[in-house]
């Protein structure tokens, strides 16, 4: 409760400073709208349904692309961590592509898939899969070898060893890898939505883009806030339970006493 109160106070002060800056009159209200206008925009967009609709369109793309990226990336990461050949080939490829900003995939995606959902998914998957491969590889490599040895003496080999020992043992790395993959997926989707207009669905990125076209700064800032809030919510809902589990089991992150 205390933590919640201090967070609330912090954000209240932040919005207060913003309102003060608007009132000082140093910046044009067209460039820096009052937080009240931004709130009004968000409220209006919520009521007429555009916000929920485009949030749903965006989240759907994000979840499908992210899930595909993780499902492809995880086994490949395990593969590169165990095989020298895959490490030298696929591993280097992943490392190279991970450094490529995912916006750079958009021209290619447009030419290959046209202005379709396929292009969106492609960009999200390309943004996710490489960092998931690298995180999984890193996780599997950092497992104390004694776990695998102990498991083998107890008769755990092959598939059992991978699913019951290697994967859970690399969980701390996997979760941070998944989180990183999520951040990359989110970024690449936003880039794709801002640059690519497609007719099958109007996402948050599109709203952001048209906000700029119309010079509607309340819309631009409002959508940005929505994007940040979604990011925070996903972190709380999707990753925090895992992190709590890890901290409880591994005994890490003990700060209260």
């Amino acid at each position: 409760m205390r933590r919640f109160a201090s967070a609330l106070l912090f954000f209240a002060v932040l919005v207060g400073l913003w309102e003060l800056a608007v009132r000082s009159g140093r910046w044009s209200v067209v460039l820096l709208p009052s937080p009240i206008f931004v709130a009004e925009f968000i409220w209006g967009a919520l009521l007429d349904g555009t916000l929920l609709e485009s949030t749903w369109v965006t989240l759907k793309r994000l979840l499908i692309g992210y899930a595909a990226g993780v499902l492809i990336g995880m086994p490949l990461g395990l593969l590169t961590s165990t095989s020298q050949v895959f490490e030298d080939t696929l591993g280097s490829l992943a490392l190279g592509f991970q450094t490529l900003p995912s916006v750079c995939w958009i021209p290619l995606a447009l030419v290959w898939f046209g202005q379709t959902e396929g292009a969106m998914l492609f960009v999200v998957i390309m943004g996710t899969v490489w960092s998931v491969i690298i995180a999984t590889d890193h996780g599997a490599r950092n497992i104390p070898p004694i776990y695998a040895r102990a498991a083998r003496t107890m008769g755990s080999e092959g598939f059992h060893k991978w699913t019951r020992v290697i994967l859970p043992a690399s969980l701390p790395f996997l979760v941070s890898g998944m989180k990183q993959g999520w951040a990359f997926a989110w970024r690449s989707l936003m880039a794709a939505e801002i640059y690519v207009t497609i007719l099958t669905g109007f996402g948050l990125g599109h709203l952001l883009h048209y906000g700029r076209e119309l010079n509607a700064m309340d819309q631009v800032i409002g959508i940005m806030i929505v994007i940040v809030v979604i990011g925070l919510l996903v972190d709380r809902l999707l990753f925090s339970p895992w992190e709590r589990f890890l901290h409880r089991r591994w005994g890490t992150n003990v700060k209260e006493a």
Partner: protein
Amino acid sequence: MEVSRPASVTAVPAKLIVENVSKRFASSRAAVQALDNVSLTVTEGEFVCLIGPSGCGKSTLLDIMAGLTMPDTGRVLADGKLVQGPGRQRLVMFQESALFPWLDVFGNVMFGLKLRPDLTRTERRDIADHFLKLVGLEKFKHSHVHELSGGMKQRVALARALAPDPQVLLMDEPFAALDALTRDQLYDDIQRIWMESRKTIVFVTHNVREAVCLGDRIVLMSPSPGRIRQIFDIPLPRPRDINSPELAGHASKIATALKGTVTEAFSE
């Protein structure tokens, strides 16, 4: 078959036979002859301690017995069968706690049991409960691994190794990281458990008193190259008290021999 040791050639069947095992580790910087033509027979129900200075290959020998490492030459027979890989008839208990942090105490003890298809669910749970009780940790069944002290962790590791009912227990300096008080307590426990279960135990240590307190026989090894130097029989009655004067007498004799292997290694 060659019998290189003088004592205890009896009618008791051999559980583990190590025949002319050599193992060499080569890195880009150096090559180490970890084991050089080592032969050893461990009989059923025997408690054998491997002792020697670091680098004498005692842990490597244990790994080879476990099937975790393959020898360059020579072979290991367990119950007359060639060891080609690890198997749950020969469970290993490691120096550092190799407990799995993603499982609680009970889950760790259950891990090996779940790999035995011949048991039912209830049987597995009963066995796990039994061994947790045996090591005195039944109250910590649902604790997380990181919440346990070093001694408690090794007790769980012992329960985990005993639960699947292996024929041979291989212990790699299991108490080396513990404080003296905890160790003394564990010596009593392990002797009690051994006398009840009559498992064959091979126990690696560099602590002479520990070896004398636990072992029927003590195999002294010398480093570079790793060889068996001498084998001592310890005919003391059990349970043994690590602080008893008789035990100290044996220990000082072995300590002198151990010191010899170290000074030799340095003068070479």
